[in-house]
């Protein structure tokens, strides 16, 4: 059972601040979706290997040479706050 408190905890892990009234609605939705997902318990998956990618992948390596890429200014241009070539965020340490 997903309670309002659970929803608030999951929201916190997701870095989303939920309003009180939103938390109850989302708890109901999540409960309903997880109930649906529980149908997977019908399946015995004991010896099944997990698939994270459907088609075979291999590591891709290349020589460490610089290709055309965004300049520092271009990379920073969409930040609300920047300073001395860095992103600026609210103060973390008091």
């Amino acid at each position, binding site marked *: 059972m997903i309670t309002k408190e659970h929803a608030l905890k999951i929201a916190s892990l997701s870095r*989303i601040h939920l309003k009180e009234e939103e938390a109850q609605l989302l708890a109901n939705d999540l409960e309903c979706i997880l109930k649906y997902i529980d*149908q997977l318990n019908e399946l015995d998956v004991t010896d099944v290997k997990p698939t994270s990618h459907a088609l075979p992948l291999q590591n891709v390596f290349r020589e460490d040479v610089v290709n055309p890429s965004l300049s520092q200014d271009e990379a920073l241009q*969409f930040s609300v706050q920047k300073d001395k070539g860095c992103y600026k965020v609210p103060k973390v340490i008091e």
Partner: protein
Amino acid sequence: MKIAQLTAHEILDQYAAQQLKVVDVVGSVLEQISQSEKDIHAYAQVFSGDKLPAFNGKNIPIPIAIKDNICIKDTETTCCSKILKNFIAPYDATVIGKLKQSGAIFVGHANMDEFAFGSSTETSCYGPTRNPWDLSRVPGGSSGGSAAAVAGNEAIWALGSDTGGSIRQPAAYCGVVGLKPTYGRVSRFGLIAFASSLDQIGPITKDVTDSALLMNIISGYDPKDSTSANVPNPDYTKALVKNVKGLKIGLPKEYFIEGLDAEVKTKVMDAVLLLKSCGAEFKEISLPHSKFAIACYYIVATAEASSNLGRFDGVQYGLRAQPSQVRKTNLVDMYEETRDQGFGNEAKRRIMLGTYSLSSGYYDAYYLKGLKVRTMIKMDFDRAFEEVDAIITPTAPTTAFKLGEKMNDPISMYLNDIFTTPANLSGIPAISIPCGFSKNRLPIGLQIMAKPFAEETLFRIGYTYEQNR
């Protein structure tokens, strides 16, 4: 007939015969937009006109709509989310670079469900798109703007993206052709990620020939996408042959059951009979884990989404909100407030579901189990393709539903994708082709699936069907 109603290949023929100029085609499309866009709302943004290229015999100057999650340099690319409003893409997606080389004319960024989370294009921060066949109904989603633009002649063709059916289902609802290529066939570089192991960009077109033509432009290996497949890239138009003799096609019994609309079933079976009369061999097959596809998909897709959307935190780009009070630290409050204000309901729902299934204590029961069921679904297809060359199913269980009808019932919305998610989970190519109309004049789509990298089989079957209808 208006120029905007033509297919791309018809326009190219008329360019070659000097019967048509690029400016006339663009003019006709813009005129259509000025007439019907206020009703359909296919676009998040229509671009203001650049200098138009002339046809030179080799280029393909055709007006195209681009889903709002594919970066076009120096244009606003927002995934139809408040959190990315005013974000100007600083580079071109690989598919956009290829289209620019081909002489494409970009009409605008097409509307979509926020971050492609949805099956109806109702979760866009710009408001919903409406189905050109019936304005009280949804165009499907999440590439609903792309499909509605093509169906409503507001573009000649379009690009969408498909994570669980987001190209094929709106193509079916709007009566156009939509292809999800094999995973890795088309570069994802510059596509804003939803679920990286499932996402593919693909064409939405008026017919099968245009689908092959557009695939010729956009597909191919790309070193900038580490999951891009380094395999030979064929000329897809060579597969446009009117011959299915000897092809073995499977009909999965699990796809023709309860919940499937009777009219949809009839039209799909009519298409099967037609292909049979053209020489295709049909047999019943079983994909026994199909009914678990939606549950599996919503674990895998939301887990990947919760991780991919972590980048939207107010630091590098997009919205940054000011917290009204200090609850945790200034920084965490800024993250949490930004994401609360920036994401819509469905985005929050999916990010939270994904976070939950990945969280300590629930990982084995949800995420890991989802990955294991994904293996079982994929093995169903591996076995089936030992017996058949292709599989035919309906694209969606019903025709287009009414706006608002499913907005408060996430499960019922998710079940629209019951026939389309298996192809994403298995990485295989799949196409939706119009196969007729319901009694109330709504389009119905037929889905064809094939082995990985066998898009040519899809085109061959699709073309034969289309030419013999």
